[in-house]
């Protein structure tokens, strides 16, 4: 079996490196070598990916064990206690502190607020254009505003934490030192905010977490700060980039765009299909460590070995999705795993769905002649892919 260097080369314009699909067909659990920490496995098929993500024999917490030398893209091992590197029941202890605020039912109550934000942003865009850069006009400010309001992070700090967040989701876009410094800056920022809110609690999620720590000792101080950082970064980087990615895909596919414009009732299905179809995840993040011997597609994974998964290729698995490389708003069954699977299934999934529906639906309604205005440059070397800028006119 050949051992391949991983991550694979990142292609432009949200294209997916064809090596993934060759592996999915011929070598679904492939041997890979990372820049640091040696070799591991890469799973690309839908069922294998779901097994790795949800089966208790695969651990995220093992990545954090003292002395662990896990295959990775950065020279140093992560050190902060983060919900993304915990297993149940520890993970459950943290997640349930905020899970209620992110249910589909509670998120639906924020739809009106999201609509108001989008209407205001598109008013401003219309006044100052055309053209406009949709990333700055809509894609970034909507999720940032919502997550800031939910967490209790002052929106006026956004230029500051956006720069750090850019660093925190980088793989090769910045130097390892810059990436670590960005993570430390974010933790310092949230720690400062936690101290201020301790003195003056408010009706927000950080205050809820502080009370859970101070009154009930349900999480440690480092867990509290890391949780705040994770919610802030994951709460906007993903959705913001997806808004840009979805608009990019739609504006380059006139047939699909016309179909969605002519039948707005397709919007929820269209958003699900764009979630399935869009290669948001860069690569090589969040490996799982086998804690027992597990067989995946005929390959035996030994205890202690690392397995990487690729949700993007899983969402193109032809055994689950007919014509997987086609964007099709009429799929009867669309069990994509863009939000992951198992204990780490994205806590913000209902929020992301709602924001994407409101942003894309309103944009298409308001600007019936929206089109791309020149070439689109994509960010590179990050955990999350998306346009650097999205020039549009109408």
């Amino acid at each position, binding site marked *: 079996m050949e051992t391949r260097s991983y991550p694979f080369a990142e292609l432009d314009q949200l294209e997916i490196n064809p090596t993934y699909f060759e592996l999915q067909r011929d070598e679904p659990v492939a041997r890979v070598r990372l820049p640091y920490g040696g070799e591991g496995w890469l799973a690309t098929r839908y069922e294998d990916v*779901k097994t790795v*993500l*949800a089966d*208790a024999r695969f651990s995220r917490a093992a990545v954090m064990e003292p002395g662990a030398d896990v295959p990775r893209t950065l020279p140093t091992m992560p050190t902060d206690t983060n919900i993304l590197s915990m297993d*149940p*029941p520890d993970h*459950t202890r943290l*997640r*349930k502190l905020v*899970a*209620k605020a*992110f*249910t*589909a*039912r509670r998120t639906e109550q924020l739809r009106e607020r999201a609509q108001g934000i989008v209407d205001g942003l598109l008013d401003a865009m219309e006044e100052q254009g055309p053209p406009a850069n949709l990333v700055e006009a809509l894609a970034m400010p909507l999720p940032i505003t919502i997550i800031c309001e939910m967490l209790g992070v002052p929106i006026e700090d956004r230029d500051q934490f956006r720069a750090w967040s850019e660093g925190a989701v980088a793989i090769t876009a910045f130097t390892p030192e810059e990436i670590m410094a960005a993570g430390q800056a974010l933790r310092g920022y949230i720690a400062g905010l936690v101290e201020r809110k301790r003195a003056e609690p408010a009706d927000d999620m950080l205050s809820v977490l502080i009370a859970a720590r101070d009154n009930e000792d349900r999480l440690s101080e480092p867990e509290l700060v890391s949780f705040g950082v994770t919610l802030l970064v994951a709460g906007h980087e993903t959705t913001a980039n997806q808004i840009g990615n979805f608009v990019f895909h739609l504006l380059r596919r006139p047939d699909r765009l016309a179909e969605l414009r002519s039948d707005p009732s397709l919007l929820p299905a269209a958003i699900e299909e764009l979630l399935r179809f869009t290669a948001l995840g860069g690569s090589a993040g969040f490996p799982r460590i086998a804690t027992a011997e597990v067989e995946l597609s005929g390959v035996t994974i030994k205890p202690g070995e690392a397995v990487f998964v690729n949700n993007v290729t899983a969402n193109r698995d032809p055994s689950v999705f007919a014509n997987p490389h086609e964007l099709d708003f009429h799929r009867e*069954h669309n*069990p994509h795993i863009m*939000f992951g*699977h*198992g*204990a780490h*299934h994205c*806590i913000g*999934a*209902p929020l992301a769905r709602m924001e994407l529906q409101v942003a894309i639906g309103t944009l298409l309604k308001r600007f019936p002649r929206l089109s791309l205005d020149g070439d689109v440059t994509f960010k590179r070397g990050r955990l999350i892919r998306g346009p650097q800028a999205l020039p549009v006119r109408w």
Partner: protein
Amino acid sequence: MSEWTIEVDRGACLGTGMCTSIAPDHFRLDGGTSTPVKSPVDPDDAVVDAAESCPMEAILVRSADGAVLAPQP
């Protein structure tokens, strides 16, 4: 000890795998949606955790007298 009943609204369930990861002894995915392994069951906090963690609030846990234990409103 009085037992708890577990119901899953399979129309609401999205098959996220939250409950099957949090309480693997109590839930399994069947055709893409969750189903209780058995019901009623002996009280187990993992069942409540699973119901509280479901983004769709599709899991209902009741005590023997019918009172809703989870999810909390």
